[in-house]
């Protein structure tokens, strides 16, 4: 019995999110039908799918905002599905969620927004430390210090997302949910946001569940990508492996004009990154020396 528990505990540690046989229905329309998905600890999992395939519904189900019609969802080994939305508090302080529009509380400043979860879960932290925590979280999310005292209405779209990210990170979560973080950002802002997520993931050791339409994001920062189609997850794999699969939607998605453009961009990036690494430098040296040796 105890052995089983430890096994379960280990499995939990390895797979923070386990979705089994998820069914979601709205009226007659079935969005998910027997959807399975496991997220590994410490990975950035991208979730893609056409419009209306229920990417956001999947995320809402996992974080307990949408009661599914069937199936089981376990986050950190605890079942989300059989509780009321306001109940599962043992898990809520271990994840952070960034909603599509930021979903900042509009009557509070950015700093106060970050403080809300801190106050909710850790009332014993004194005001000064809480202000400081809010400030460094805001700055970690790539906002200038002044943004702390600004209201959401005074921020641009990209800044709102960063502020939302700061709030999602408020409790030092292990698990981060991002709903289309780069949608509506300009390419430079989107690339910067991608880098920020990758950096934070590495620094804080996060597990990231990332819904996106952005092919660049998929290529750049996702460890694995889950493809939603036909009411379930049809494949979970790295981008290169997915591209080898023979599924019409996946082919269209990754090998379409936009998919190829993103791939080229990534290849160029990769090349540039290696330019200043020793291997590349050695190669350059070898090439430089070659004619002399020949002579």
């Amino acid at each position, binding site marked *: 019995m105890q052995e089983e528990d430890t096994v379960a505990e280990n499995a939990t540690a390895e797979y923070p999110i386990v979705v089994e046989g998820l069914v979601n229905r709205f009226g007659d329309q079935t969005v998910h039908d027997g959807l399975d998905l496991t997220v590994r600890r410490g990975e950035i999992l991208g979730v893609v799918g056409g419009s209306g395939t229920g990417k956001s519904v999947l995320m809402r189900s996992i974080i307990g905002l949408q009661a599914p019609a069937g199936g089981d969802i376990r986050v950190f080994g605890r079942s989300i599905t059989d509780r009321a939305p306001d109940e599962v508090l043992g898990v809520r302080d271990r994840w952070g969620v960034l909603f599509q529009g930021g979903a900042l509380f*509009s009557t509070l400043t950015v700093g106060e927004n970050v403080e809300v979860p801190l106050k909710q879960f850790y009332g014993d932290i004194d005001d000064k430390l809480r202000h400081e925590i809010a*400030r460094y979280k805001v700055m970690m999310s790539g906002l200038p210090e002044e943004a702390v005292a600004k209201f959401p209405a005074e921020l641009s779209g990209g800044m709102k997302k960063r502020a939302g990210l700061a709030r999602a990170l408020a409790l030092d979560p292990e698990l981060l949910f991002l709903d289309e973080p780069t949608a509506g950002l300009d390419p430079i802002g989107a690339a910067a946001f991608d880098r920020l997520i990758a950096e934070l993931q590495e*620094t804080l050791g996060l597990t990231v569940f990332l819904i996106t339409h952005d092919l660049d994001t998929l290529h750049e920062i996702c460890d694995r990508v889950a493809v939603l189609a036909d009411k379930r997850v049809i494949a979970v794999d790295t981008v290169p492996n997915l591209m080898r699969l023979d599924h019409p939607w996946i082919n269209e998605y990754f090998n379409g004009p936009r998919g190829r453009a993103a791939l080229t961009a990534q290849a160029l990036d990769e090349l540039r990154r290696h330019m200043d690494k020793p291997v590349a430098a050695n190669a350059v040296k070898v090439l430089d020396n070659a004619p002399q040796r020949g002579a």
Partner: protein
Amino acid sequence: MNGAASFALVDEADGRVLRLQGPYLLSTVGAVDAHLHDLKGDVAAVDLSQVTAIDTVGAWVAHTLSLRLNGPITGADDRAARLIDAVSAAPMDGVTPSRHLPVWQRVPQRMGELVVEFFAGLLGVLGFLGQIILAAGAIIRHPRRFRGKALVRQMEQVGVSALPIVGLMSFLIGIVIAQQGAVQLAQFGAETLTVNLVGRITLRELGVLMTAIMVAGRSGSAFAAQLGTMKLTEEIDAMRTIGISPIEALVIPRILAAVLVMPLLGFYACVVAIVGGAVIADLSLGIPFQSFLLRIRDVVPTYDLWVGLIKAPVFGLIIALSGCYQGMQVKGNSEEVGMRTTTAVVAAIFMVIVLDAFFAVFFTNVGWG
């Protein structure tokens, strides 16, 4: 993960060392933070080698301690070093999140704002009225631009769908006036004057006034919320770019609908209230239903009806104007829609009651007492 955070000051070869022990996490730091604050004097080092777990909050605490006590951080493992590196970009003292001023500054500031807002609002309403008059002029010159369908739809919303609730309200008001009036008038043996009371008070005042309040609550708020939401979703901007004037397309039909429908609704309310009074008179005063209605014809002068009907369109105008104006002023966030809607209803009801008082004095002075 278990245990509590603690610390110890240890004297070592190269001086005093602050040694942090146990988990330094968001969940544990709260208890130890106050004590750490009391530490004074420089230390040779802030040692993290006995920290069992750390997150960014712990890293921040260690970082600020190291700066404040002038001791470098030692014994940090990879993760701790990485986290400290990540948080150290933020300055120790800086902008605080709250923007709330202390009371002695906030009260005068708010008062000043209110005064400025009042005059700005006055100007705004005048400007809005001007826009409406211009748009009305344009429609008169180009009658094809008039939105008949929108007008009919709004009349249905403001008028037809209000019939049940206005009817019920008026019926009950008629009952209350007749019943309460009869009790008081009985003291003079003048129960029959209940007919005068019900007839005159509903036709002159209450019928239209209560209808106006109901319409302000139903339709004035709806106008403000609809236009406000359209403003937020940029529908109104979209209309402008297509070349449709939102005043012509949205505001004029609503105002016209309210102005046209209010007299009808008001009259309907009066009739229902009188019927209500007649029912209660029949049941509890012994005045037969038909003779109550016949008496109304004798004791209520026709100008009482006119007093009510003249006021009604003015009230309609005020309600619609207030709703549309507040709706068009929405910008920024969804919270403002709610605030503007409330303002629209409160301002409309207030203005209706103020104007009603003016009308009462005016009509008495012109001999329609």
